[in-house]
């Protein structure tokens, strides 16, 4: 038994080292003064020089703003669509087209990005032609097309999260509310949404992150002047390592790290409170 504990401990230790050493090295080198990213300039480091350069880089800052807008819009829309899809799949029982809906909503999880990107672009090209033919006017490609593409692939994640959250509750509370005369929309807003709120929140964050992070789909669907942050990073990094990117990465890791830790703490407290209330309800009922 003791040897197995030892084996498990070292598996975890090595695994976490593998996951975190690259990130830590990236953070360390963002404070390096040398332009040769991997040579540590001990005399002049640590320095915040690259952070200053980063915030003066208009290209990166503009792209970051574009990315934030796209990610916020697509996460919000994806949460609405994904919650509906998850609700339908988890609660509505059998109906015609259910397996098609379930297939359509899980396939984007594993679909290679190049396929999604290419097919969305070809759709938009076809739509542009139709618009031009019918109205003599057409939308250009840009933030809107990227957002629609992102909604489509991120809503799959929201659907899965919401669906599995709903699957872990039975529908007795919703039924009780219905029996007491509440309308379906009211049941949804007063019972179902509070129950799945953690799933909705984490679905939104997940969708935001995925959209914020995506290079390939954005590259296919972007137009002139709609460069997202990952697109800018990708083209910069292809030419070699850049210390500004290290600084950017450090900021992002810190924000995300803080966010994840805080939300994990919050979720744990919310879960505990919910359990306690349920127990109270049982004890009082």
């Amino acid at each position, binding site marked *: 038994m003791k040897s*197995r504990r030892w084996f*498990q401990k070292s*598996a*975890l230790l090595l*695994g*976490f080292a593998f*996951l*975190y050493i*690259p*990130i830590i*090295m*990236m953070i360390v080198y963002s404070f390096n003064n040398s332009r*040769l990213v*991997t*040579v540590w300039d001990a005399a002049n480091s640590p320095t915040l020089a690259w952070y200053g350069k980063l915030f003066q880089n208009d290209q990166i800052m503009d792209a970051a703003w574009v990315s934030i807008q796209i990610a916020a819009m697509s996460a919000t829309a994806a949460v609405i669509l994904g919650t*509906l899809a998850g609700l*339908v799949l988890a609660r*509505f029982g059998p109906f015609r*087209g259910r397996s098609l*809906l379930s297939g*359509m*909503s*899980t*396939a984007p999880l*594993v*679909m*290679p*990005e*190049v*396929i999604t990107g*290419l*097919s*969305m672009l070809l*759709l938009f090209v*076809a739509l542009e*032609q139709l618009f031009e033919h019918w109205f003599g006017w057409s939308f250009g490609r840009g933030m809107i097309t990227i957002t629609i*593409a992102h*909604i*489509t692939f991120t809503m799959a994640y929201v659907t899965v999260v919401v*669906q599995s959250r709903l*699957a872990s509750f039975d529908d007795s509370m919703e039924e009780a509310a219905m029996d007491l005369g509440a*309308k379906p*929309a*009211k049941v*949804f*807003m007063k019972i179902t949404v509070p129950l799945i709120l953690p799933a909705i929140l984490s679905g939104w964050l997940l969708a935001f*992150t995925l959209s*914020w*992070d995506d*290079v*390939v789909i954005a590259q296919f669907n972007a137009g002139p002047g709609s460069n997202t942050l990952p697109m800018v990073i*990708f083209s910069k*990094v292809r030419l070699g*390592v850049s210390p500004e990117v290290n600084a950017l*990465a450090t900021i992002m890791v810190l924000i*995300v*790290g803080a*966010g*994840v830790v805080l939300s*994990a703490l919050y979720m744990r407290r919310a879960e505990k409170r919910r359990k306690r209330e349920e127990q109270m309800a049982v004890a009082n009922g």
Partner: protein
Amino acid sequence: MANSRALPAHARLRSGRLGPLWDLFFRFGPLGWSHYIRSHWAGQRLVIAIPFLWLLVFFVVPFLIVLNISFAEWAPLSRPPYEPVLRWLEDGALQVKLVFASYTYLLHEPLYVSAWLYSIKVAAISTLFCLLIGYPMAYAIARSEPSVRNIYLMLIILPFWTSFLLRVYAWIGLLKNDGVINQFLMWLGVIDSPLTMMNTSFAVYIGIVYSYLPFMILPLYSNLEKHDQTLLEAASDLGAGPVRSFLRVTLPLSIPGIVAGSLLVFIPAVGEYVIPSLLGRTDQLMIAKLLADEFFMNRDWPRASAVATVMLLLLIVPIMIFQHFQNKELAAAKK
């Protein structure tokens, strides 16, 4: 529920927070239609229709367009650069022109054949390494104290929330000739001259394993965590050693987790674009890179569409297996 028109107006307006909105929507909608939805309002049809239509328009129709264009003839000078498959002639007849040139090219051109084989090889090897690293970790987490389990899980998920692109980028700094690993090994005196690790298959394996490891660990963990410990006790009571009881009890029980995790890594890895572009070989392309080059550089839309179609056909079986396991998992969670 039958017909809420029978209700007094104030009751109608207060039906849930969505009430007034719906009411305005229906009051000004075409009469027959609003009556239809009202009388069926568990709202069901509408609620089903919204995500359904969205996915139909933005997920299924695009594939049909890709399929359509893959049979078109490349016309580099027109805009868009292909001759449409379907065309209405002047006399009202419908002309159908299917061209298989893109597909025959894909299957015979050595560049493409080797890209296919290489992509599958890279994805398979990376999946195997993911499993070899991920399984012990998932196992260790599932067997650890419940109090630390959530912390471990958070540590697994945390990198996933940070930018995928930047995590791949981090490896450039480690793997370069004058990178951290080479400098460290030379300082140790293990090697005299730097190892070439960038722009090799090895770098791509590392990149994929590193980026997709959480996708392997999480399904494995959620499977391993559910195992009934009494089975292992029974095995040890019957005289099985730890290795034997692992091989005979734990491993067979965890096959659904292994399959789900492996597919979650393998399928996207075949079509991986970013990792091989940043870390991979320049003399041997993966299929996604070929697709993108064909589209953006040669502007050969039919051929790019044909590559996408073939890739989808190759992946459709693994995708369906994945969905099968996904549905089983959800059904099990329901019980």
